[in-house]
C-alpha cells in the first residue's frame, strides 16, 4: 500500500520546528530588551514606569485582539483608531453627566460595535475591499467629530476618571490590566475551543474552500468586525478615562500601532494563521520600546523609526523562515 506515514524522526523535527515559532523569537527578543534595560537603565524597573507600560499595553492589546480576528479573516481595519476616537468622545458626553463606568463603558462598547459593524457590512455586502472601506470610514468618523464637538470635552467629573485613577486591585494593579488579562485568556480559550474560531481560520486560509465546506464567509467576516468593535470600545474607555479632558483626535493614528502589534505577533497579513499569544508578545514589545528608549537616553523622536525597524525585522525573519521551511518540506510523493 502507498503508506504515507511521517517517520518518528520527521515528527521530532516537526516538534523542533514548532518550538522555533514566531512566538519563541519574540519572547527571546523581549527578554533581551528586559536584560539590556536591567543593565543599562535600572531606573526603568520602577513601579511608576512599569504601571505606565502596563496601562498602554492593556489597551493596545485589547484592541489588537480584535484586529487580530479581522486580519485572520484576511481583512484589515484601518478605521480602528478613528472608531476609538469616536468612542472616547461618546463616553465623554455620557460621563460628563456624572454617569458611572457601569453606564458609559457599555455605551462605548455599543458605539464600537455599531461603527465596526458598518465597516463589516460595507466589506461583505457591497464587496468593497477592506482597506478601501475602512479608509473611507476613517475619514467619515474623524471628519464627523469636529462638527459635533469643538476641540474637546473637558472638566470631566471624578466618576469619569475613576477607572484610571481609583480602580486598582491590591491598591496598585490598574483595572485596565485586569480587563486585558481576562479578555486575553477568554480569547485564547475561544480560539482553541470554539467551533467558530475554526471558521475564522478557514475563511482566512481559503475563502473558496470555506464556501464549499458550507461556511458562510460573509457571516464570519462580519462577525470578526462585530467582535472587534466592543473590544475597541473597551480600549477607548481606558484611553479616554486617563484624564479630565477628552479631545476629538485622541486615538487618531493609533490603528498603526494596533496593526503593528498583530503583525509583529506573527499573524499573517494575508490571513489564516496567527495566534493570540503572538499578539500579546507583539503588543508587549511595542509598549516597552518607547519608554525603554527614553530611559537609555534616546530621544522619543526615535521611537517611531525604531518600531518600524523592529516590525520590518520581524517580517523579514518570518518570511525567511517560511522560505527555508518550504525548501525543507517539499513533500515526497514518491515512496
Amino acid at each position, binding site marked *: *500500500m*502507498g*503508506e*504515507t*506515514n*511521517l517517520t518518528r524522526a*520527521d*515528527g521530532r523535527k*516537526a516538534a523542533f520546528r514548532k518550538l522555533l515559532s514566531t512566538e519563541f523569537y519574540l519572547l527571546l527578543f523581549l527578554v533581551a530588551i528586559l536584560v539590556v534595560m536591567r543593565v543599562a537603565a535600572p531606573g526603568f524597573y520602577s513601579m511608576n514606569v512599569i504601571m505606565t507600560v502596563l496601562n498602554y499595553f492593556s489597551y493596545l492589546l485589547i484592541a489588537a485582539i480584535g484586529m487580530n480576528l479581522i486580519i485572520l479573516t484576511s481583512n484589515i481595519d484601518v478605521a480602528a483608531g478613528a472608531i476609538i476616537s469616536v468612542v472616547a468622545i461618546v463616553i465623554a458626553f455620557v460621563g460628563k453627566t456624572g454617569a458611572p463606568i457601569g453606564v458609559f463603558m457599555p455605551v462605548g462598547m455599543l458605539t464600537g460595535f455599531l461603527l465596526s459593524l458598518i465597516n463589516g457590512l460595507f466589506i461583505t455586502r457591497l464587496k468593497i475591499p477592506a482597506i478601501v472601506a475602512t479608509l473611507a470610514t476613517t475619514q467619515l468618523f474623524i471628519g464627523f467629530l469636529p462638527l459635533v464637538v469643538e476641540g474637546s470635552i473637558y472638566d470631566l467629573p471624578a466618576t469619569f476618571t475613576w477607572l484610571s485613577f481609583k480602580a486598582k486591585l491590591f491598591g496598585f494593579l490598574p483595572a485596565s490590566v485586569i480587563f486585558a488579562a481576562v479578555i486575553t485568556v477568554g480569547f485564547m*480559550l475561544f480560539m*482553541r*475551543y*470554539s*467551533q467558530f474560531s*475554526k*471558521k475564522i*481560520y*478557514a475563511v*482566512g*486560509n*481559503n475563502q*473558496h*474552500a*470555506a*464556501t*464549499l*465546506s*458550507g*461556511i*458562510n464567509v460573509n457571516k464570519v467576516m462580519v462577525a470578526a468586525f462585530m467582535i472587534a468593535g466592543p473590544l475597541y470600545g473597551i480600549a477607548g474607555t481606558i484611553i479616554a478615562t486617563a484624564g479630565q479632558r477628552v479631545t476629538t483626535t485622541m486615538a487618531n493614528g493609533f490603528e498603526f500601532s494596533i496593526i503593528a502589534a498583530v503583525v509583529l505577533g506573527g499573524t*499573517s497579513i494575508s490571513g*489564516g*494563521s496567527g495566534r493570540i499569544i503572538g499578539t500579546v508578545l507583539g503588543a508587549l514589545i511595542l509598549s516597552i520600546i518607547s519608554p525603554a528608549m527614553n530611559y537609555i537616553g534616546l530621544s522619543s523622536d526615535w521611537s517611531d523609526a525604531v518600531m518600524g525597524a523592529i516590525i520590518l525585522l520581524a517580517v523579514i525573519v518570518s518570511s525567511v523562515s517560511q522560505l527555508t521551511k518550504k525548501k525543507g*518540506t517539499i*513533500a*515526497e*510523493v*514518491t*515512496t
Partner: protein
Amino acid sequence: MDEVLRLDHIVKTFPGVLALDDMNFDLRAGEIHAICGENGAGKSTLMKIVTGVYKPDSGEICIDGQPVSFESPNDAFAKGVAIIYQETSLFEEMTILENIFLGHEITRKKLGFRAIDYAAMRREAQDIFGIMNVHLDLDERAKNLGMAQKQMVEIAKALSYKSKILILDEPTASLTAREVDALFGIVRSLKEQGVAIAYISHRLEEIFELCDRVTVVRDGKFISCHAVGETNKDMLVADMVGRSMDNYYPKADVEIGGELIRAEHLNQAGVLRDVSFRINKGEIVGFAGLAGAGRTELAQALCGFTKLDSGDLYIEGNKVRIGSYRDALDAGFVYVSEDRGKYGLVVEMSVKHNITMPQLSKMKKGLFLDNGLEKRTADRFVDELGIKCPDCEFLTENLSGGNQQKVSVSKAIAMDPKLLILDEPTRGVDVGSKAEIHNIVSGLAKKGLTIFMISSEMPELIGMCDRIYIMKNGTIAGELPRGEATQEKILKVALDVA
C-alpha cells in the same frame, strides 16, 4: 441494490448558458459509478447540484427515495453527501485534525459552553485512518503534505461525515501510479462497506479498472449509462465527443536534422542522476515516466529555474551554461508549464496580452506599445491554432481548458524558439481539444520546430514522438524509437520490471 441517489430531469441555467439540460443520474449503495464527458460537458455543475452548492432550476433530487432540497453544502453533508474536489480544498495553515473536522467539530459541554473535544476528535480520526490504513501525524499542517497525502486527508474528512454518498472529482490527476493503487484500495473498501461512489475521471483506463457503471454526459445532457462490462473505450469516446476519433494521435513525417541539444551527465542532488540525452532538429522527443521520476525537474533545470550541480549541455555542438530562464530564452528554449493557471497564463488578462507578454519590447513604436502590431500578432495565432474566442481581446479565464492551453502554446511559439518544452500539454483538456493540440504540435514539428514533450499518457507519446526517453528515479532508464515503443515496454522500464 438500493438506489441511494437519483437525479431526475435536472435543468440548470447560468446567465446565457444552459449548463444542464434534462440531466438524469442515479447511484446505488455499494457501487462505483463513473461519470465522464468532455470538459464543460456539465460534470462539475452536476456535482455541485448534488452537493448543494447550486440549486437546480427544475427537476428533482431524491436521496433514499425521498425528494430533498439543498439550500447549502451543509444540507448536503447532513444527508450524507460528501465530495472531494479535483484541487484539494484543504486549509493549508490548519492541522490535519482541524481540517478533517472543520465545520463539524466534536464538542462537549464545558462550563456551560460547547467546547471542541480534541481528544474525541483525535480518537475518531485515528479510527478513520485505521480503516484507510494511512498513517499521518494529525498535528501536521496541511501545507506540509504532498498531493497524495492531502487527498487521504480529504477522504478522511468525507468519512468523518459518515457519508453514504462520496463523490470523487478527478482524484488521480496528480498521483503517482503507486498512490493511485493505494487510493483504489481505499475506494474499493469503502464500496464494500456500502458507500455509493460517484467517480469523475478523464482516464478511461481507470473507469474500466475500478468502476461498475459509467454515465456519459455531453453538452449538459445525459447521453448513455452502461455497465462497464457492456461497453468499451471506443464506445465511450464516441459518446463523449459525438463523432468518431480516427485521428487521435496524428504524426506528420518530418525530416530529422542534425543534433540540436546534447546533455551529458546532468546531476542535481536528490533530483537528477547522471542524465544524458540528445535531441535532433525537427524531432519530437517524449519523456515518459511515473510522476516523481524527475521529468518536470529535468525540464526546469534545462530552463534555468533550478541549478544543476554538474553536467554539460551543448547546443549545436557548442557548450552552454544556463543559469536563469533568461539564459534559456536566449538559447531558444521555451517552457510551457503543466500548470497553466499558476505558471502559464495570467487568466485575468486578454488572449492578446497573454500571447504578446513575453516580447512586449519587440512590440513598441517609439515609447509606446504598438497596439496594432500586438493585435495582428495575436490574431495570427488565434487563427493558426484555432483558439475559440470571439476576438483576441477576450479574457483568457473565460476560455475552456483546451483553448487556454492553445494560448499557452501560442505565447511560447510567438517567441520563435528552437526548442519547445511541453510539460503535460493535454492535462485537464477534453478529448476534442486533445486531438487539436496534437495536430498543432505535429504541425509545429513539420515546420522544423524541435519539441521536448513530457506526458503521462503513454498512447499520446507513442503516437506523437519520434523517440521516447523513459525516466525513473531521476535518471534516464531507457530509450525507445518510434515504431518499437509500446505501452508495455515503456511501463516495464518505468516500473523496472525486467
